[in-house]
């Protein structure tokens, strides 16, 4: 009998340990005053270069919020990081893990629109509030469970097109687009809307594909149109390759593109060929308000470089989530954070200045700045050197 009893005792002990472990896994073992926010990172995978910069901004914001006691009551945010590699299947798996951990009351995710689209289904089913920090496809936000602090490039592109038309006054413009990507088609349309009615002649659009890697043919097509300006609405790698292909073949007209070339990594890959190519950004330290200046100073101190648009978007995403947690009361839950997040209609003194939220989407049109790279790798506000001349 004694061995049987011992076996039963051991089995009961093992079951108790297993139950305790499972319970711990489900609640995540929250400490007093700790508020857990899930963060699906993209530190590996196809856009790791951008994922690191977004992560820098998010971590800087959380450090600042915790250091300054922004949440009040001695509470502090802990990021629960899960590497999603910006691949839909992996990111969805990580979203599921965050969803089952009931101690996680909010989540930050996603640079690529297809990944965001897949993840938001999982988090919404779990009633876990999600803030998308980088994906740009129109309509991804879906309050109350999904909001987005990504600054949408379409309005910025339209304004840049108008500025180019009014100040550089090219007689004609040609476009090149990543034709098999709805996000880039949407950005192309915003440029075309900006040029519409300005008198700049539209010479047509050259299509490229997302998987395309050689742009000699596309450059030949564009130059054959003899435009005074070329608008490039393509993926980052395609944009840099097109700029190189056009400049190396002697194109001297005005090249205009999107915020995609705004990161230091883009300049490193392109070098001085990106000089004097205007693109729009929502965050530019040179024109930012006090909060933006402080963010830029802290970012330089922490990471040794100026923050780019991705870092700013990461920072803003974490700051908005922290604001929702603060507004959610002393003991934030998924329900209260969801309500607080979707109730935010306006935030003052952010790094973008005053921002508005409509239907879960951030708007900050007043912070748009048109910048360009200098030949030595600094950014400055763009002003046309004169009328574009091909």
């Amino acid at each position: 009998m004694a061995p049987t009893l011992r076996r039963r005792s051991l089995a009961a002990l093992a079951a108790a340990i297993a139950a305790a472990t499972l319970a711990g896994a489900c609640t995540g073992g929250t400490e007093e005053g700790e508020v857990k926010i899930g963060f699906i990172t993209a530190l590996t995978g196809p856009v790791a270069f951008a994922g690191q910069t977004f992560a820098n901004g998010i971590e800087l914001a959380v450090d600042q919020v915790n250091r300054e006691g922004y949440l009040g009551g001695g509470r502090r945010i802990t990021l629960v990081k899960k590497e999603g590699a910006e691949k839909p299947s992996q990111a969805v798996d990580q979203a599921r893990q965050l969803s089952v951990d009931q101690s996680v009351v909010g989540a930050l995710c996603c640079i690529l629109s297809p990944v965001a689209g897949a993840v938001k289904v999982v988090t919404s089913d779990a009633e876990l509030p999600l803030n998308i920090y980088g994906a740009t496809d129109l309509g991804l936000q879906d309050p109350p469970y999904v909001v987005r602090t990504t600054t949408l490039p379409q309005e910025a592109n339209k304004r840049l097109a108008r500025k180019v038309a009014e100040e550089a006054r090219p007689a004609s413009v040609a476009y090149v687009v990543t034709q098999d990507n709805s996000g880039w088609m949407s950005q192309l349309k915003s440029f075309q809307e900006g040029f519409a009615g300005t008198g700049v002649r539209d010479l047509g659009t050259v299509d490229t594909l997302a998987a395309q890697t050689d742009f000699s043919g596309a450059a030949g097509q564009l130059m054959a149109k003899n435009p005074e300006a070329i608008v490039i609405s393509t993926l980052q790698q395609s944009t840099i390759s097109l700029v190189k292909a056009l400049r190396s073949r002697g194109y001297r007209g005005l090249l205009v593109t999107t915020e995609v070339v705004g990161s230091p990594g883009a300049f490193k890959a392109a070098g001085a060929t990106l000089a004097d190519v205007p693109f729009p950004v929502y965050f530019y330290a040179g024109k930012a308000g006090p909060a933006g200046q402080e963010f830029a100073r802290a970012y330089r101190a922490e990471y040794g470089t100026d923050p780019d648009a991705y870092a700013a978007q990461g920072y803003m995403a974490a700051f908005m989530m922290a604001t929702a947690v603060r507004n959610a009361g002393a003991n934030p839950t998924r329900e209260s954070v969801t309500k607080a997040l979707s109730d935010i209609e306006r935030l003052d003194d952010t790094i973008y200045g005053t921002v508005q939220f409509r239907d879960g989407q951030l708007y900050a049109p007043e912070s748009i700045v048109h910048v360009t790279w200098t030949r030595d790798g600094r950014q400055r506000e763009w002003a046309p050197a004169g009328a574009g001349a091909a």
Partner: protein
Amino acid sequence: MLFLQQLVNGISLGAVYALFAVGFGVVFSTMRILNLAQGVYATWGALFAYWTVTEAGLPFAVAVLAGAAAGAVAAVAVDQIAFQPLRSRGGDQLLGTIITSVALWIALREAASLATGAAPLGFPPGTVPDGLLQVGGVRVLTTQLLAIACAVAVTAAIHLVLRRTRLGAAIRAVGHDRGAAMLGGVDPRVAILTAAALAGAATGLAGVFFAAGQTFTFGLGDGLLLHGFAAVVIGGMGDVRGAAFGGFLIGVIQVLSAQYISASFQDAITFGLLLAVLVARPRGLFRTVELGRA
């Protein structure tokens, strides 16, 4: 004039595909391996060339050699680590080598991703020959001319090695019948290593010239793999000249179809041609000459 301009662009793009296809064809015809890891050799060739100019500060000519050497080393290493154990078991290992090469493809691709932080890379201005030749209204970059010259020279050199030297005869003999070659005094290991090195070097060069005029990432070899494979099938697995011809043909078709039909259909047209050739001439356009026959 636009047609001539795009024809030149197509030929220079085809030169890169040709270099890749030559390497692909040598491996298949001598080792009977459909090596799907071949594309990653191009990636590593481009990366070593890039580091040669950016980290070591050496000129582009040295970078080209470094890229070829990196491709050769990668090819030999992969062969000895992944394929040699399968060969030593004997029998037909075609399926096994395909699966193994997929594993190597993923592993080496991820290694390249980690090594570069998945960031886009580009040769800094001034480190690559940046001359521009204008003939009439046609613009030709120095790097395009170099790619075409290199593809022609490498194809001719590998063809001559395989056809006119004892080593080449040994490689062809091993490709045809390894056992018989051994009975004839051929060391199959030397022949296979030489073939792997030649193929890797040609593929590494393809990577270097592909990367020279634009930005690239760790995924550089993926696109080359598909187009290089199509080039080999179209030109014929058994002759490096056919593989090179297939590469040039695909480059020209891609650029001209994007210009005159639609960029959206350029891959559909390329791989449609592949299907047509498979149906009409299953051994490729150069089917009359088979490298496998010693």
